[in-house]
């Protein structure tokens, strides 16, 4: 049951689009900054397979420039 948090950097001018895109991805909670071009992405997947699938989905998002991981937890 992995939990990760990231700083999500949108492509230039694509913050709103990224917010929309991430909102449609399962296991994602998003908190946009009000005054900067970044979002906090919190992922909470039930198992490793779901986590791997989620990673692929995130990599496919055109509005996402990069992710910086800030926290990771995986139950033994």
């Amino acid at each position, binding site marked *: 049951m992995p939990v990760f*948090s990231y*700083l999500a950097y949108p492509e230039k001018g694509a913050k709103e689009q990224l917010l929309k895109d991430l909102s449609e991805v399962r296991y994602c*909670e998003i*908190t946009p900054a*009000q005054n900067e071009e970044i979002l*906090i*992405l919190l992922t909470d997947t039930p198992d490793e397979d779901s986590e791997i699938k989620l990673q692929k989905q995130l990599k496919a998002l055109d509005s996402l420039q990069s992710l910086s991981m*800030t926290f990771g*937890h995986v139950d033994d």
Partner: protein
Amino acid sequence: MKLDRRSFIKLMAMNSAATAAATLFPGVIFGAWKTVDMASGGLVWKKTPCRFCGTGCGLLVGVSGDRAVAVKGDPNCTVNKGLCCVKGYHSIQILYGKDRIQKALVRKNGKMVEVPVAEALDLVANKMQETIQAHGKDAVAMYGSGQWSITDGYVASKLFKGSIGTNNVEANARLCMASAVTGCLTTFGLDEPMGCYEDIEKADVFITWGNNMAEMHPVLFSRMLATRKNRTNVKIIDFATRTTRSSLAADRSILFRPQTDLSVANAICYEIIRNGWVNWEFVNRHVSFHKGKTNIGYGTEDHFKFKDKAETVDFDSFKAFLEDYTPENVEKISGVPAKDIKYLAALYGDPDKKVTSFWTMGMNQHTRGTWINNLVYNIHLLTGKISSPGNSPFSLTGQPSACGTVREVGTLTHKLPHGVVMNPDHRKMAAEIWDVPVENIDPKPTYHTVEMFRALDRGDIRFMWIQVTNPMVTMPNLRRYRDGAEKEGRFVVVSEIYPTPTSDVADVILPSALWIEREGFFGNSERRTQHNDQIVPMPGDTVSNTWQIIEVARRMGYQKQFPWSEETYIEDIWNEYTRFHDSPKHRMAPYKTLKERSGVQWPFVDGMETKWRYNAKYDPACKQEDFDFYGKPDHRAWIWLRPYEPPAESPDSEYPFWLNTGRVLEHWHTGSMTRRIPILHKAMPKSYVEINPDDAARLGITNGSDVKISSRRGSLVMQAMINGRGNPPMGMVFVPFFDEKYLINEVTLDAFCPISKQPDYKKCAVKLERA
């Protein structure tokens, strides 16, 4: 709603991301976080000032049930705009240390025994009364703190000065900002800075005098770095005695020999005059010139007395006085190249640059602390760079309420909440508000902090109540004062949250509530008063320090002066206290306003905060056009002629190194709280001695090896740190004081500034040996 494990992990994940974002984007706001957190487990967020330094960051504490579980910076607090430092982010963990004192303890047959709090309070009151009967009222004393909530200090002052009638009230802020007070009083006639943190966004040049803001005031340092990043031509100059993280982040690092900042400040004034950079319009209308006594001593002997005497002089006398301080002469004294002195003078002298000077302990813990404060003010006054946005000489306070509780409430021997005990009008006002006979208030100050502990050692003081501070780690020349506290016939009461070397010498330990376990107020460096509600319950038998004093006062027969109910006493005390400051020069915000906002700056007049004092554009107390230094009878700020004088002790052939002491980023003062936060303890687990690599090589000392540090007063063995986060110049070592296992203050010297009575922890002579 209870927070389950998974929600807690998610909360931590969110917290980590927000922390990282705040580091990368100072001031970033995540307004929707509250919604996310509610979905993650039902946290309630409540505002409070941070428990630690004098910056006064606003925090939001996330509470689940009865437990504080998360911290984030308060985006509504203009001090930190949502950012915190590492101590702030972990601050709530100080509530939950395993060895938290939750029961009252009384020494019986040499052992500390748990007793009901009421029994301990009875004993404290009885012992105080017995001591007064046997030895007189000046045999009992209260030693408090700049970490006292405002109401703690207020009731302490009311009990001791108003009810008992002794001026034996001091606070550890004497050790950290007394020179800033006397600097303000001698130059402006009123205490506390004229500027505010908004100067950080307005200034073009920052000159930091002997302080390491990157570690001691990291949030303000971040604001300074953000200003430099966001604007062109902003410069940060680090003027210090050792290389620190602040030096590395600065545009220029300039090192001077200890104590010689006095000569450099005078040389800067010399250069400003020589180059025609004096702002004559300002000087002619708003400044007067004065000189005081010289060769004023160091206070190392008991019963030391000094009283300065001001003599009015003119500009020509000032100019003549400065003739000794040419950059070339001062280069020889200070080690600062003449070209660097000229560079600093040019920065201050440039009419197109706004300049802010920051300082903390380097200038205040100084045997000429009042003088060096005066001299930096001289520079700002000569150039007219003061009391306007971006132009600010600013002493940053170390503790969260050194300003609020010590400087404003007046918890020092000579002070009252308004004014000083020596002034009959001030005594009359206090007697009226306190409802005590005016004769109760003694017109004579008794002991400043060092002398108070000397009096305890001598036996002139027999009873001492210590709250929220750890003098058995922090007093200079410590061994004398610890031995004194342990002498037969002394009775020491300690109000504490964790065991410390100070509670080790106690006869009674009272279990204290921590900051968000009770309602309270702090006052930060920029005249900002900050309120917090009680956010979590008090554990065990703990009691707020304010209520402890009220209970003892009532037991001593002062019910009339301490009538408040336990439900409303904080508000009631605030309403009484603010009567002392009911004028446009110092009016405080009402209780309701403070409850609503993340801090309010005084003077608070007609619903408006005052950001820049003494400037008619911003300060409603001004009676003159543009600037009005209304603290002085002549409505002028005073430029002082203060010479360079050497320190009390300098390196010699037997003790060839300077010892400089101070703090580190991770730990708050003596570490009694932060060393119980696992992540901070792990990051900085033990104290060390920083040694210059060349000195270490010469002495055969390697990184991590044991070194014996000795002075004429004591010695200790600790590990060497070479090329660590700080690097002293050759001939100097630096030791942080956060670790009670390494009591560096057994080595330091109890010399102090004769005007402020603040000790100098930055300069004494030691020798080093491989251990």
